């Protein structure tokens, strides 16, 4: 930070301010009905796929373990509904290649009560036991990365955590699921934070919320007051409103905004004594852990100009997108062409198929109309005029303009060595601001992929 920082109310250096488009910020979370068939992929997370423990034709109860965690980095999965296992087969996945999944035909008449709870007394559990309970719940980072939470809360040998940072930024336009969770489930969030504090051994938790969500800050403040009235068991909890800016939801940017510290290149926040978790993840932990249930549903923002009933829905995992889009409806007079994106508009992924199910890491389903798509397809790409807009937007301090020129010449090694391509986390700010409409971050993804394949050889 230079001295000018004191005159600017900037959370972190550079970044952008896209229109927030949070259409669903004020609508309460609603429950989505069960689809006739749910598709539970074995790999919904970073790490090894889970191993199925049910057979085709077997009756499963909602919440029942249907796939156990593999050795190493992996989490189990639970049946999102009561029904019968119809198939264990390859199904389309959001990443592209078909992947093994357990298909459950939902019993239409079932009460869908979660009968498979396995309550444990966690009041005196050690941090190892807590992390095991977290692993058994199948919890992964619900903010989008889907990294197993038990592993994220594990402190490497020799390191010590003092602060649990709770990420409530939700900086992507359109998405409001974390916002609604903070407003409606603040007490669950506090409970989850207490588990997080105990699992990591941190002494304080700080919730960072962007200042465009005052309702969430107020709800959390009220919950913190109750926590303080109870004598702050497990540690002190604070909430901090940070100036709204994209991509603040990146933990590197959030740590900069909250504390003015940078995570050294190649290191994790734990090197600074900090562990970062998403609000949705911890709120879900707060709900699930006391009753010993598994993660079978999550809050998903269904939004965009292409749906007539946008909202935040509690969606059973495995619900196919087709069912969700039917339920959320299409605006009158819209033609069939739609673009469906998993996640937000900045980093989300456009999907090739509506048979793809909602998985643990999906925070939003964003639907654009055919005409929105045509509008974006019609932009002209000009040569780079070296205006430096991208340099002024890159939160990592890279020079996307030069990286883009190198990418056009396929100088991938020079990009990595001279221009730190590896630091790019693909937030898309450069492409967003480019007046020449050059698909910069898209080229960087290609470059990174090429370099990965090269180094794998």
């Amino acid at each position: 930070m230079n001295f000018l920082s004191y005159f600017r109310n900037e959370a972190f250096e550079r970044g952008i301010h896209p229109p927030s488009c949070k259409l669903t910020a004020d609508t309460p979370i609603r429950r989505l009905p069960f689809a006739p068939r749910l598709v539970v992929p074995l790999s919904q997370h970073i790490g090894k796929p889970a191993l199925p423990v049910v057979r085709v034709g077997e009756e499963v109860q909602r919440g029942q373990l249907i796939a156990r965690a593999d050795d190493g980095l992996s989490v189990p999965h639970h049946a999102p509904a009561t029904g019968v296992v119809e198939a264990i087969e390859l199904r389309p996945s959001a990443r592209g290649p078909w992947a093994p999944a357990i298909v459950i035909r939902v019993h239409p008449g079932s009460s869908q009560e979660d009968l498979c709870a396995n309550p444990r007394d966690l009041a005196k559990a050690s941090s190892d036991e807590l992390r095991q309970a977290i692993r058994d719940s199948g919890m992964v980072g619900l903010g989008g990365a889907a990294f197993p939470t038990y592993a994220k809360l594990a402190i490497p040998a020799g390191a010590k955590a003092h602060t649990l940072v709770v990420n409530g930024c939700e900086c992507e336009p359109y998405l409001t699921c974390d916002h609604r969770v903070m407003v409606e489930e603040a007490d669950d969030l506090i409970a989850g934070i207490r588990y997080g504090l105990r699992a990591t051994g941190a002494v304080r938790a700080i919730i960072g919320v962007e200042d465009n969500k005052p309702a969430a800050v107020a709800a959390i403040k009220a919950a913190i007051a109750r926590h303080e009235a109870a004598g702050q068991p497990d540690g002190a909890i604070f909430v901090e409103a940070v100036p709204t800016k994209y991509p603040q939801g990146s933990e590197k940017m959030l740590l900069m905004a909250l504390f003015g510290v940078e995570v050294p290149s190649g290191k994790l926040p734990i090197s600074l004594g900090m562990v970062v978790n998403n609000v949705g993840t911890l709120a879900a932990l707060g709900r699930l852990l006391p009753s010993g249930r598994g993660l079978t549903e999550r809050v998903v923002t269904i939004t965009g100009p292409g749906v007539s009933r946008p909202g935040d829905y509690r969606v059973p995992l495995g619900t196919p997108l087709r069912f969700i889009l039917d339920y959320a409806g299409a605006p009158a007079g819209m033609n069939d062409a739609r673009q469906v994106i998993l996640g937000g508009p900045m980093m989300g992924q456009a999907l090739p198929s509506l048979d793809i199910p909602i998985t643990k890491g999906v925070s939003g389903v964003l639907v654009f109309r055919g005409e929105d798509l045509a509008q974006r397809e019609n932009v002209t790409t000009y040569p780079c005029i070296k205006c430096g807009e991208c340099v002024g937007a890159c939160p990592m301090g890279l020079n996307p303009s030069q990286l883009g020129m190198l990418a056009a010449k396929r100088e991938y090694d020079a990009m990595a060595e001279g221009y730190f391509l590896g630091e790019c986390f693909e937030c898309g700010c450069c492409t967003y601001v480019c007046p020449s409409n050059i698909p910069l971050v898209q080229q960087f993804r290609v470059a990174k992929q090429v370099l990965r394949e090269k180094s794998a050889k």
Partner: protein
Amino acid sequence: MSALSRTSAAAPVAAPHASTSGSVTAVMATVMLALTPATLYGFWLYGWPSIYLWLITVAFAMLGEAVCLRLMERRAVPVLFDGSAMLTGWLLAVSLPPWAPWWIGALGGLFATMLCKQAFGGLGQNLFNPAMVARVALLISFPVQMTAWVAPLPIDMAAAPGPISGLLVTLKGIPQGLDAVSSASLLGFAKTEMSRGVDLLQSLPHAPSLSWLGSRPGSLGETASWLIAAGGLLLIVRRVISWHIPVAMLAGIAVPAALLHLVDPARYLDATTHLLSGGAMLGAFFIATDYVTSPNTARGQLIFGAGCGVLTYVIRTWAGYPEGVAFAVLLMNSLTPIIDRYVKPRVYGRDRQGVALDAPAMAARPIVGREY
């Protein structure tokens, strides 16, 4: 590169799925809008010949671009619509003596877009600012025509040439009867007098007057310094350019000028004269800030701007030419790739040399401003 970009842009399956509505054309249009008040004021000051010269320069700049594109068997119209050729011609036109003959504008316009821009590969590829290369080429080739400044003769005055006689001025040159209006610019006058051994304290009372309002000889774009500066401020407010290059360049001129004037007022002109003379304002706000030929980091821009300013002052004061903005900008243009190579933004999590930050040191850093 453009082929690659086009194919990727046509298939928007990869994030981000949102972008700004800005475009190259919008940027160019904003710059032209910012130039408009000063240009119109210049038209009023210098009358019909300046209007014709402007039209000819802009037209030939666009013609040069179109010819090159046709030679490359590309469609010219979409490229012409990005506005960059028009802006190049416009910037060249406002740096020319307003009553220069038509072929100065025509040659300059063609030279700027054909040799200085398209020969390098078109928009974004040129190393040097096309308008300034063309201006310098003209100055070296045709020093007489390029230094024939006229005193302002506002268009509504009786003595000012009308639409027809104005056209004749542009086509056939300045007629004998109007010779009286020819005059030197202040910088040129001071330099000539100095070379005759007359120091500034004696010569300046006889020098052409200098004013913010622009009633003095000069090019279209240099006399109305305050309108140029206002246009530049508009660009800064609209975030088309940042403040770094203009401020650094003006400081690079003003600081040495003020210091040396303090030391020896008989030999060195004061800072105000330097800032209001020649192309200082135009150069600082519109020429040096050209995206393509200037560095794209804030620190690089400060270095670049300061270099432009200091070089301008050095050329004006000690070199053979009375005016140095064009030469200074071109010299710094040649340094831009080097500046961009060595002055990079500091990467998050690394120090300026690109070495990863020290984790224990960062962890020990006090948490700013808050008590937890």
